[in-house]
Every structure is written in structure tokens, then in C-alpha cells.
């Protein structure tokens, strides 16, 4: 997988320039930084595979992260597990709204979720106003999820890996998971085939929302403050991570493992540019080049295949 090669190369080169890059603390920071983006990219990949997209994930994440603060303010003694359930339910509900609109209105998901992105963000802004919740307001055990490690891995990173594994198995080895690929590969053929396209697309958006909700809960654990603007602009990073990780925006192609690696790559680039003292501006430019490279590679293979098809058809005559 090219993205894995790029990631290893990036880490090795950075380490050669600055040997502090792979110190224990630095590795832990790398993982913590990547965790939330990995979950979001996993969620987004599920939707992208069906030839849809969800641009409202930043707003959903903000909404859920802010709810975490509000929840602990109202119920400081509640067990930490409850907030995970609440966060995923809220995220799943918002995702289902997207899914329902996309399947019923038959308008491209790009437009629908652009709309819900503003709508969700607007609701959050009205609700939050200028209020912010700080990590100190939450129960200490909640904050510790982002500090303590098991076998050297932060707990929230373990959660992310578990989620990635479950979704990866579901997409590769469960019938509904395979249906998602079929739908993204050719929606008309899927309908002709008798696949329940609408139900599956609704499922994909709901799953994306629920996983984004999980990421929102972890965001509240990991970062110091959450407010009306939490998660703004994140949706583009997420789509970028998935695309760099080999998930085709045109659907039917890619894996969540790839999307996860794409997320790790993007978040590691930031760290390694800091470690090698490169101007921060270059980070965005390099991400841009990576996306273009991913798209070009994708396109070139597609054209090659198409040419092969035409030649083989001509030969049949």
C-alpha cells in the first residue's frame, strides 16, 4: 500500500534529522494526535465507499463534544461509560438525519451534508453561545482516558484501533458491508440486483454519525476546551485522510485500514514538520500535494483499465 510506504518513509526521514522524534513521549503524542482523525476517517470511509460523502462530520463532532461538557455539568457523578452511549446515540441520530435526507430527497450527498453542516453548526452556536467547557469540569477518570496507557498505547488510541478493526471486518466479511461496495461501484446495477440501496445508504450515514459521535466524546477527553467552534473545518481533513488512504471519492474502492493510515500520515506530517523545524505553512501545501498525488494515481489506473477494456472488446470481433 503506497500510503504505508509514505508513512514509514516520513517517520524514518524525520527521525534521521531529529532523533528525539521517536522518543517515548513523542510517540505517545503522535498516537494521541492521530487517534481522533483515525476514527473520523474510518467513519467517512464507510460513507465514501457508497459513493456519498458526509461534510457535516466536523459539526457533529462539535455538537457531541459540547454535549459531553453539558452532560457532566448536569450529572457530575454519572459513570463515564454512559457518556459514550449518549455521544454515539446523538451522533447516530444526526447521521441518520443526513442519511434520510440523502435517500429521500435524491439530491447529491455533497449538497445535503453541506446544508446540514451549517444547520448543525448553527444549532450548536445557538446552544453554546460563548460558553466553553474545560477538561477540569469533567470527571478526572474521563480525562485519564487520554493520559493513561495500556501496553504503551493510550486508552483512547486502543478504542480507535478497536473501532477500526470492527468496521474493517464488517466491511470485508459481512454481507451488508459488501453491499456498500456494490452500491458505490454501480448504484443502478445494485438496484437492478435487488440490493436494498436506500436502507444500506441510511445505515452507512448512521454508522458514520455514531462513529463521529464517538470521536466527539474522545475529543472532549483529549482536548482542554470545547465550544461552539469545536471541530470546524475538520471535515475536509477527514475527507483528505480517506482519499490519501486510497478510498475513492467515486465509491466502491478502498478500505478503512487505508483511511486510518491516511489519517495517521496526515497527522504525522504536522508533527514531523514541527520536529524538523519546517515552516507551518508547508504542512497544508504538502497535504494538498498528497491529495493530488492520490487522485492522479487513481485516475491513471482507471484510464489504463478502460483502455484495456476497449482493446479486449475490439479483439473479440
Amino acid at each position: 500500500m503506497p500510503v504505508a510506504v509514505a508513512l514509514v518513509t516520513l517517520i524514518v526521514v524525520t527521525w534521521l534529522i531529529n532523533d528525539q522524534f521517536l522518543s517515548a513521549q513523542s510517540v505517545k503524542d503522535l498516537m494521541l494526535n492521530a487517534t481522533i482523525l483515525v476514527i473520523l476517517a474510518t467513519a467517512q470511509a464507510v460513507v465514501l465507499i457508497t459513493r456519498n460523502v458526509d461534510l457535516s462530520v466536523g459539526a457533529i463532532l462539535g455538537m457531541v463534544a459540547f454535549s459531553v461538557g453539558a452532560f457532566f455539568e448536569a450529572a457530575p457523578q454519572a459513570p463515564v461509560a454512559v457518556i459514550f452511549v449518549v455521544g454515539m446515540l446523538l451522533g447516530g441520530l444526526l447521521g441518520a438525519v443526513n442519511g434520510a435526507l440523502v435517500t429521500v430527497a435524491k439530491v447529491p450527498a455533497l449538497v445535503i451534508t453541506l446544508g446540514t453542516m451549517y444547520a448543525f453548526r448553527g444549532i450548536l452556536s445557538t446552544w453554546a453561545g460563548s460558553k466553553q467547557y474545560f477538561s477540569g469540569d469533567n470527571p478526572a477518570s474521563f480525562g485519564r482516558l487520554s493520559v493513561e496507557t495500556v501496553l504503551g498505547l493510550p486508552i483512547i488510541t486502543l478504542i480507535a484501533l478497536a473501532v477500526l478493526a470492527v468496521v474493517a471486518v464488517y466491511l470485508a466479511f459481512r454481507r451488508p458491508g459488501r453491499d456498500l461496495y456494490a452500491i458505490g461501484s454501480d448504484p443502478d446495477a445494485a438496484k437492478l440486483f435487488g440490493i436494498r440501496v436506500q436502507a444500506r445508504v441510511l445505515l452507512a450515514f448512521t454508522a458514520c454519525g455514531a462513529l463521529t459521535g464517538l470521536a466527539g466524546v474522545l475529543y472532549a477527553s483529549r482536548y482542554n476546551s470545547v465550544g461552539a467552534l469545536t471541530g470546524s473545518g475538520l471535515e475536509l481533513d477527514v475527507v483528505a485522510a480517506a482519499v490519501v488512504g486510497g478510498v475513492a471519492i467515486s465509491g466502491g474502492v478502498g478500505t478503512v485500514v487505508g483511511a486510518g493510515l491516511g489519517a495517521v500520515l496526515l497527522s504525522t506530517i504536522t508533527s514531523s514538520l514541527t520536529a524538523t523545524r519546517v515552516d507551518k505553512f508547508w504542512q497544508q501545501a504538502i497535504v494538498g500535494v498528497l491529495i493530488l498525488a492520490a487522485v492522479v494515481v487513481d485516475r491513471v489506473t482507471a484510464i489504463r483499465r478502460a483502455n484495456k477494456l476497449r482493446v479486449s472488446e475490439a479483439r473479440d470481433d
Partner: protein
Amino acid sequence: MAAAAPADATLVLRDVAKSFGAVAALRSGSLVVESGSIHALIGENGAGKSTMVKIIAGLYRRDSGVFRLDGEEVDFTSTADSKAAGVAVIYQEPTLFPDLTVAENIFVGRQPLSRLGLIDRRRMREEARELFARLGVPIDPDRLAEGLSIADQQIIEIAKAISLDARLLVMDEPTAALSGVEVERLFGVARSLRDRGAGIVFISHRFEEVFDLCDTLTVMRDGAYVSTHRTDEVTVDQIVKEMVGRSIEALFPKEVAPIGEAVLEVEGLERGGVFHDISFQVRSGEIVALAGLVGAGRSEVARAVFGVDAYDSGSVRMNGADVAPRSPQAAIAAGMAFVPEDRRKQGLVMELSVARNLTLTLRSQVSRFGLINNRAEARAADDWSRRLQVKTGSPQHAAATMSGGNQQKVVLAKWLATDPTLLIVDEPTRGIDIGTKSEVHRLLSDLAGRGVAIVMISSELPEVLGMADRVLVMHEGRITAELSRAEATPERVMHAATASTEETVA
């Protein structure tokens, strides 16, 4: 007049009707397929065969009529329903998922599972391999479906149908893209399915295949049932007569016009896998019809001549001068006009007003200083709608609000305003009611009378026979016959279109 239904019939359709808005796609379709038999369904394009297939597949719901499977009344609302009831359909166009493996394409939705409830890929692969072994084709189950030849894709569709163990298998022109060996292989499979008690519906335009494979056949015409025969009790001529039996006089015939110099000369036009060695001439005042079945390559030739699509070799000349390939602008400059088949998508801007659509090709005439003059536009639009008798609420209404016939007139007007010397029309009256049809015909006839050379692509035999001075018949990418008006009979055109016999002319 429907056929009698014996008790052991797998499929019974009686007086089934289906309309889309005002257009009746199927008026009264009847079909009885007994178990353990292969039944051919034949008829011209537009006879209603495909609509019937889609009703059987659960893609459409019938408006009325009887639909029984194994004696049970059924009403499918989706293709999943029909599949669950044991119906497998192989469509003309393979419908595979290009990004999935071959094995998965066969088993989507019913992949073999392991004890853990996960997909057992190894078993899926082995089952696919067994299917291919049975079919005698070496296709790798692990390769992606993308890039497979049409024939291989069709084989996968067949493997899919076999693995479903269907009691009713419908094949909608499955052989159109297959070579002789592959057709034989397909027939072998179909016969073995029949011998195991399945009912099979076979749609094909190739009569020799129908007679080779099928036990019985049903003829359809104009959306209705005509007759059912045992294949050993009927001849090709008889069937052809039943397929086309329809009066041509009811339609507007072309008036005699003086025929002049050659306007369009096409020489050895070739595009790999699409059409081959296409040469013909069209003279001024002449209507040349391109007849043939859907998929014979007629529209593709027209698009190549007009420069929309590229061609590999050959030449196109207008009035003796070469026309640059791949350039509609060059074609228009040389005097060509092209009215495409799908006027909603390619001929009109549906959201724009009728007037705007009419004057789209007249921009320079109705504008001053590079800006469109509204009054000049309205005047030009008025003039043309009057000349073609376009009936519309107001020229300011969106084009989408007009009837199909009037839309077609607007498309024609749009091009006539450019004063072309050659007009290419693709299915000029498809989806247009009978009354407006003859108006479109009168218009084409008028144009020919004024010296315009016309190439008309049409799948409707009466239209071809009534309008054309000369008929070129295409079959599978080649011109198989050139018939003068006097020579062109329904039977001869049909024979050449299906390339069924001796009638073919080099």
C-alpha cells in the same frame, strides 16, 4: 386471444398492461412458459418485450392483468422480490459491479458464510470456480470485474443465474455480444437448465438461434400479444409477417423531390468494436434511412459523422470537402445539423424558455455588441414557431412543459434556423403521439423538397419504409443491405437487420 394456460406453466402473463403517463409501453402482453421448456419472445423494437421483462423482474409494476408464477398470483415490488421467488434475469447489458471480484459479483447478497457469520471467501471462490468449470470457461474468480470483455461479463451473469437455481430464467438478447462458440456454450447451459425443469424465456432477434434453441415462441407487436407457435410448426417468413403486420399507409409518406448532387460522402468509417467499414452517400433532396435494431451501431455512426465521437479511420466529406474529425463545430460550419435521439438530454435545455431554446443556434443573429437583444430573439422565435406550428402555452414557458412532439419541433426549428444542407435525425418520432408524428414527417418531407439531404435513423419500420428514398440496414456494426424505396419491404429490412439469411447484400 391469449394463449391457453396449462396447469404446469411456470410463468403466466395475461393481458398485462403498463403505461408511463400517456404512453402505453405495453397494452396487452400475454406469455405462457411451461416448466422444462424454452420459449422465445420476439418482436420489433418497441413491441413491448423489454417492458414485459422488467415487469417479470420486479423493476416495473403492472397496471393491470394476470401475473402468475407456478400457479401463484404474484406482484413484485422490487428485483429482490422476484429473485426470492426464483426468477433470474440476464439483461442485454451486463450489470456487474466493476470494483468487486468476479466471485463476489456472482454471490453478492448471498455469499457463503462461515460458522462465525462472516463471509467465507475461500468457499465463495471455490463455488465460483465450480460454476466456471461447469460452464467450461477459465475465468479467474479473484480478478476484478472491471476490464472483462462483454462476453466474459455475460458468462458471469449466466453463472449468477445458475447459482441462483432459478425456476424461471429470462434472457434478454444475451447473445448480441457473443461469438459462435460462446453462444453454443450458453445454449448448452440453457438446455441443461431446461432438462432440470426450469422455464426459460429467450429474447433474440436472430431467428436461427430461436429455431435452434427454443421449443415455442410468442410474437409481440405494438405492445400487444400476436400469436404463439411451436417452433417446428412455423417458418421465418410467417413470423416476420406477424412481427411487421401493420399498415404503412396510415403514416405520412414522403413526397417526391428532385434528387441532386451528393452532399455527404462517408468512406470506410471504422471504430474498433463499434462499427466497421461504413461507406455511404446522401444526395440533396434525398432521405436516407439508417435502419436496424437498437445497438446495431446506427447512432454511433451518426455521432462520429457529426464529430461528437472519434473514429479510428475513414473519412467524412461534405460537398466534396473533408470535414475535420472530432469537431461538431467543423461539422456545423460544413452545413450539418444533428437532432439527437434523446432530445431531453441532448437536444433541449429543458429549464430554458421555448424562445431561448429556439434561438440557441442563432446567437449572433439576435445579438448586438455581443449581448442578446430580447426583442430580436422573440421575433425570431415567433417566426419559427409559426412556421413549424409549435403549440405552446407561451414562448416564455420552459421547454419541459411542452409535449414530446412539440419539443421535437423546437429542436428541429433550432437546427433549421442554421440553414443546414445536411440534417441527421436520430429517432425523430420516438415517444411522439401519432398525430404529431405525421407533422414531423411532413416537415422532414418539406425539407427534402427544399433540397436538404437527410439521414434518418429510425427503429420503426413503417417510418423507414414510408419516408426513405433509400434504406441502409445495419447489423452489428456493419451495413448489411442497401435497398431502394422500391426494393424495401418490411421482410427484407427485417432479414438484413437480423442478418438471418441470403438477403444480405455486400
